[in-house]
């Protein structure tokens, strides 16, 4: 007996009544035990027994037939991000499973809990280059939090129970269970035990109170403290504790794009976005602050720029659940290796009530400069062509900042992060670390399925839209009421911007000759319209939002618009450019 089993068996909770089922049925019963009611997937040879069993479970398990496995995994991501529960995704062996990989990698770097179940060839064929055989465990190993190959039906409940526990505990992430066809077909006695502990797995460190005290001491002495927050706030559901901490300590706070909507955009101490296309103040002040409090973020290079010139003057407090992130990119003066919620609860009681008025004012001054140089012209442009920023402003106003905003990757994404006024917490879904084009449309679909009562707006560029455009089929089939906004500049805009700024305007393969998006949408049975001028923007956005069911709005924007401010890649945050 392994050490893990030895220790875990003491922890085991409930067991359902035992009955003889097939492995395939066991998979579905296990999902029900975990409270799953939604699956995104695509059938195929090696997963057919599971799909056959699913036919009898349609009352309790709603399956969405996506049009490509990449659509399935991104939908599961969108679902997981909005519900906070693991997204579940099915795919067959070989190409079915390899089509999941982009989404798995995306979920791994963005800490999204997923349970992917893939069919595999019969166990006696493993390693023989059988039809549709790919070593899925091997190819997904670098991008999964954990994976396991099941070759016997009896292993199924334990593998799935562990999968859910691992995916959703500690720093969440994607797990993959690969199940051979013979294991799906075989009969066994089903019983289910939820997993609560694995001897070799340490998801949640106990809070070290002396580290918290050291952090509080630094904060209480600080003259120019500055908070950087990331998705950890959302993942640990610490939004309230975070707000209380920020307000009591009176410290200006800036976000990474995955932390966005952890605190309302208009909160007086929310000073904006960090990083390459972030706000002027937060980047500049990073190199002026005396104490930086980083919470649930990992100092990604898009946030820090050149590390050798990053916050060298500051003492760094790093509150982070994943030990491997501490001292990875930026060395911490005080490391609090803990869950953000627990750490903030303790920290708030220890910090003195303060208002750093003059220091906070310097951020406001920076914002004034940025507003006059950049923001006003983006939100209220006088150009002939529509601008991306104003489209986001109009969507933001008309949804009253209450929508779930799902974005793809590129200029439209940066504009959305910068200009959507989030009033509702946990409402921003985007591909951050991986920067996966094609993420948005299926992720929005999954988010709408996960939050059917909320307005879900997908903002996509013309490039990314065409990467997973096939999911219009899934949206139509299940009438998933997502509102799709294409900001069409007929360019791969972000790449074009770099070509303009750093490659002497050599627009190498970034111009797109696009199809009729409205026509495509209508052919899929999804109502659509197109807007090209300012006078119609408000009315068209209104029409889209009021439409009952899915809707696509193509907004034709300026072809060569740039996102500013910008910290050029590899430069110091202090060298942020406003133009």
């Amino acid at each position: 007996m392994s050490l893990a089993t030895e220790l875990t068996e003491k922890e085991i909770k409930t067991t359902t009544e035992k009955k003889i089922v097939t492995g395939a049925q066991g998979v579905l019963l296990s999902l029900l035990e975990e409270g799953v009611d939604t699956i995104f997937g695509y059938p195929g040879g090696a997963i057919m027994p599971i799909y056959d069993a699913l036919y009898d479970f349609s009352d309790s398990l709603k399956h969405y037939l996506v049009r490509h496995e990449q659509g399935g995994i991104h939908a599961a991501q969108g679902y997981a991000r909005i519900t906070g529960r693991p997204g579940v995704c099915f795919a067959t062996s070989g190409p079915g499973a390899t089509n999941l990989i982009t989404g798995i990698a995306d979920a791994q770097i963005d800490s999204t809990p997923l349970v992917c179940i893939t069919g595999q060839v019969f166990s006696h064929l493993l390693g023989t280059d059988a039809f549709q055989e790919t070593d899925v465990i091997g190819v997904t190993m670098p991008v999964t939090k954990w994976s396991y190959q099941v070759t016997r039906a009896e292993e199924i409940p334990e593998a799935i129970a562990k999968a859910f526990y691992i995916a959703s505990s500690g720093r969440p992430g994607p797990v993959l269970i690969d199940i051979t066809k013979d294991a799906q077909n075989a009969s066994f006695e089903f019983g289910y035990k939820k997993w609560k502990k694995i001897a070799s797995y340490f998801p949640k460190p106990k809070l070290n109170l002396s580290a918290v005290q050291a952090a509080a001491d630094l904060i209480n002495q600080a003259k120019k403290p500055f908070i950087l927050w990331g998705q950890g706030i959302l993942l640990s559901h610490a939004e309230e504790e975070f707000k209380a901490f920020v307000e009591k300590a009176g410290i200006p706070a800036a976000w990474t794009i995955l932390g966005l909507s952890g605190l309302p955009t208009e909160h007086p101490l929310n000073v904006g976005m960090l990083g390459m296309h972030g706000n002027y103040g937060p980047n500049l002040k990073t190199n002026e602050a005396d104490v930086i409090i980083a919470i649930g973020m990992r100092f990604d290079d898009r946030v820090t720029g050149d590390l050798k010139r990053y916050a060298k003057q500051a003492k760094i407090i790093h509150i982070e659940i994943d030990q491997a992130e501490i001292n990875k990119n930026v060395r911490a003066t005080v490391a609090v290796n803990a869950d953000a919620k627990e750490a903030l609860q303790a920290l708030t009681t220890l910090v003195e009530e303060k208002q750093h008025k003059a220091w906070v004012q310097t951020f406001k001054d920076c914002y004034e400069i940025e507003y006059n140089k950049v923001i006003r012209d983006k939100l209220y442009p006088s150009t002939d062509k529509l601008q991306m920023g104003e489209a986001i402003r109009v969507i933001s106003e008309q949804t009253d900042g209450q929508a779930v905003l799902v974005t793809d990757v590129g200029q439209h994404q940066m504009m959305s992060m910068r200009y959507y006024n989030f009033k509702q917490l946990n409402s921003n879904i985007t591909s951050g670390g991986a920067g996966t084009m094609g993420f948005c449309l299926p992720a929005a679909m999954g988010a709408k399925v996960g939050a059917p009562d909320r307005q879900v707006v997908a903002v996509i560029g013309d490039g990314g839209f065409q990467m997973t455009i096939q999911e219009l089929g899934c949206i139509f089939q299940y009438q998933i009421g997502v509102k799709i906004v294409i900001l069409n500049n007929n360019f791969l805009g972000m790449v074009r911007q770099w070509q303009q700024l750093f490659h002497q305007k050599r627009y190498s393969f970034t111009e797109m000759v696009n199809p009729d998006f409205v026509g495509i949408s209508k052919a899929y049975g999804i109502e659509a319209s197109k807007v090209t001028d300012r006078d119609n923007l408000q009315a068209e956005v209104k029409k889209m939002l009021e439409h009952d069911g899915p809707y696509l709005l193509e907004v034709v924007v300026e072809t060569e618009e740039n996102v500013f401010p910008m910290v050029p890649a590899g430069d110091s945050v202090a060298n942020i450019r406003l133009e």
Partner: protein
Amino acid sequence: MDYNEFASESEEKNYTIFAFTENKVGLLNRIIIIFTRRHINIESITVSESEVRGVYRYTIIIRSKLETVEKLVKQIAKQVDVLRASFYPEEATVFQELAMYKIPMSSIVNASEVEKIVRDSHARILTVDPEYIIIEKTGHQEETQELFEKLAPFGILQFVRSGRVAITKHMKDLRTYLREQAEAYS
């Protein structure tokens, strides 16, 4: 031993990484990926059951900067099936390698010459066959290499050296580490 003790060192040197793990299919791959990702070459790797039944010990030798090894070890430690990972500079461990040399009988005209080399090198003769002899030596790489040079004139038919195995000098045992670690997590 805490790795922060060496936190000031920034030159490349040999480090011994230990990972204590469950015995799981594919785990070796999962651990090695962490090195490949960072384009780090592993000098040697040895896996065997440890002093605790069912717990496997990986002994991995790399040449690297302290800062890098520190990050690698944390990324190994966070793998689900890894119980504990740690690292040590060479001087904090006692280590050995095993080497085997196959020499053709035909080249040995003067048996006492070979005997002397074996004796002086603290090696031993493992097998004597009408066609060849096999000599075995444990020691540090320089020592097994030295013997290689001495035997070279006789014509070495085959030579093999194992990965390094190592034991730490400090007295704290694995169970204590594991108990402390378990207590640090909820």
